[in-house]
Each structure stands twice: as structure tokens, then as C-alpha cells.
């Protein structure tokens, strides 16, 4: 019973996380990640 509940909880949280991801992408947040990731991050590599 407990396993069944935790299994459903996991799948429910996964569905919510996918929705968050899709909403974020639609709001332009994937583009923000892209813009950050295509530039050499000087602070990140210790050159700041």
C-alpha cells in the first residue's frame, strides 16, 4: 500500500516537474539558459 502511494507520488511529482519545465521554456527561460551557456563564464572558470 505504502509502495503504491510512494510510486504514485513519484509519478505525480515527475508530471509536475515536466509541466514546470515546459512552462519555464514557454516563458523564455530556456533561452536564458542558452544565452548564459554559449558565453565563456569568466567567473566560473576562475578568470573573473
Amino acid at each position: 500500500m505504502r509502495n503504491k502511494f510512494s510510486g504514485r507520488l513519484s509519478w505525480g511529482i515527475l508530471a509536475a516537474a515536466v509541466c514546470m519545465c515546459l512552462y519555464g521554456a514557454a516563458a523564455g527561460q530556456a533561452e536564458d539558459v542558452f544565452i548564459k551557456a554559449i558565453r565563456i563564464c569568466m567567473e566560473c572558470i576562475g578568470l573573473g
Partner: protein
Amino acid sequence: MGKKSLSLGRLRKVVQIISGIAANGYIKGFLPGNPMIYEGPLKHFCLPGMNCYSCPGALGACPIGALQAALNARDRDFPFYVLGYLIAAGVIAGRFICGWLCLFGLLQELLYKIPGPKLKIPEKADRVLRYVKYLVLLVLVIGLPLFYRDGSGGGLPFFCQYLCPVGTLEGGVPLVLLNSTLRPALGWLFRWKMLVLILCLVSCIFIYRPFCKYLCPLGAFYGFMQKISLVRIRVDEDSCTNCGACAGACGMKVDPRKFPDSAECIRCGACMDKCPEKAISFRIRR
């Protein structure tokens, strides 16, 4: 039976190598004199493990770097995209990602294979030190990027800037070696980060995966998700003879009989290889 148990460890090594190469497969970035990093559409997506997005070969974004960038942006919104990604990855695989898909994890394991005395951290100290990674996540990855603002109103990626040895190894060192124009920018920060990197790599020779155990904020995040992650391990109580071979084989010092969903278990499968009764196996939660 012996052949089967060996194959899981070997399979994991193959998966680790392939995933490391796949995540950093932009060969052009490693050509001398080429300052460019990959700028293609794959960088819209985060990689599952710690992997600096300033690595010349990186084909995806670092989830921890992306989270800090989302939190310290001037016009920040709630980071739906990155947080949703991290939660999804954590629910699907948890720390299986650390054990099977992280290149820095593989490097630490290879360094631990160097023969020599291995350090046994006293149990009490080890237990306390393992909480440090949660502190790193809460303070350096979330708290300071969220609340600290410099004169221009922007924030800083504190973890990347002051601690992350992965960024120094995968980003800083190759970029400085390949690109002479970056060398005049080297200062105290680079020296500090090199010191952190060297300490981290040297400690890997004596301690199994010290960065994963004590410092990695991504491991801390996935550890939170471990209890609900779909990938889990199951100990068949009918077959288990309580010989303790599984606990003895675990580099992360987890006893899978008592804590199969421990936040410290990286799902490496060493316990499965070692179990003489084959009582431990991977399961998908339904």
C-alpha cells in the same frame, strides 16, 4: 555467476565514459587557438551531471550553473525551467546520475585506483562532513546568488566562482592552455581555484569520491530526491543471508540492507556485484 557480477561494474565504466564523451563531444572547441565554445541549440538543455558549460567541448549547460544564473539575474522570475529539470532528473534517476553519468565522478574513481594507503575518515567526522554539501547547496548555490547584489544590481554565481573544481578542470585549465589571450586575466581567483582543484584531486587518491560525498551541491539535490526516485535498489529479504558483503563493498559507506534509499547511495551497483546470493537488484518504482 562471476561473469555476470563483473559485467555490471564494466558496463558502468563504459556508460560513464560514453556519457562523458557525449557531454563534451564538441571536438572543435579543443583545437589550439580556438577560443570558441559550442554555441549550438543543445545548449538550451542542461546536462544531468556536473559538467561546466564553459568546457570547450561541452554540448549542454551545467544544471548548477544554470540554477545560479537564474537566481542571480537582475530581472529574475521563479526558475521554473531549471528547477523543473532538476526535479525531473532527480525523480527519474536520483543519484544514479552521480554513479553512472558524471564525468567528474569517473575521474575521482580512477584516481582512487592509484595504489597507496587509503584514508578511513572516523564515522562521526564523516557523518558531519556529509552535511557540508547541503550547506554548499543552500548557501553558495541558492542563498547568496539569490540575495547578494553587487553595485550594478547583479548577482554572482558563488559556487562556480569560489568553489567548483569541475569548472576549473573542464573550463579554466583547457581554455587557458588553448587560448593565450586569456592568460593575462589570470589572478588570485584562478590560483585559489587551482588550489581547490589540486586539493580535491589529491584527496581522491586517498578517499573514495570525496567531492561527491562532502561538497557536490548537485549530489545533495539528487540525494533529497532519492527517496522518491523511480530508479531504486531492492534487497530480497528471502535471499539475503545478512553476510554484510554489500555494506563492505560500498565506497559511499551505505548499508543497502538498512538504507536502500539512502541519500548517499550513488547506485553504482558495487553491492550487487559483491552479493553472493544476488539478492540486490535495480528496480523501477511503479
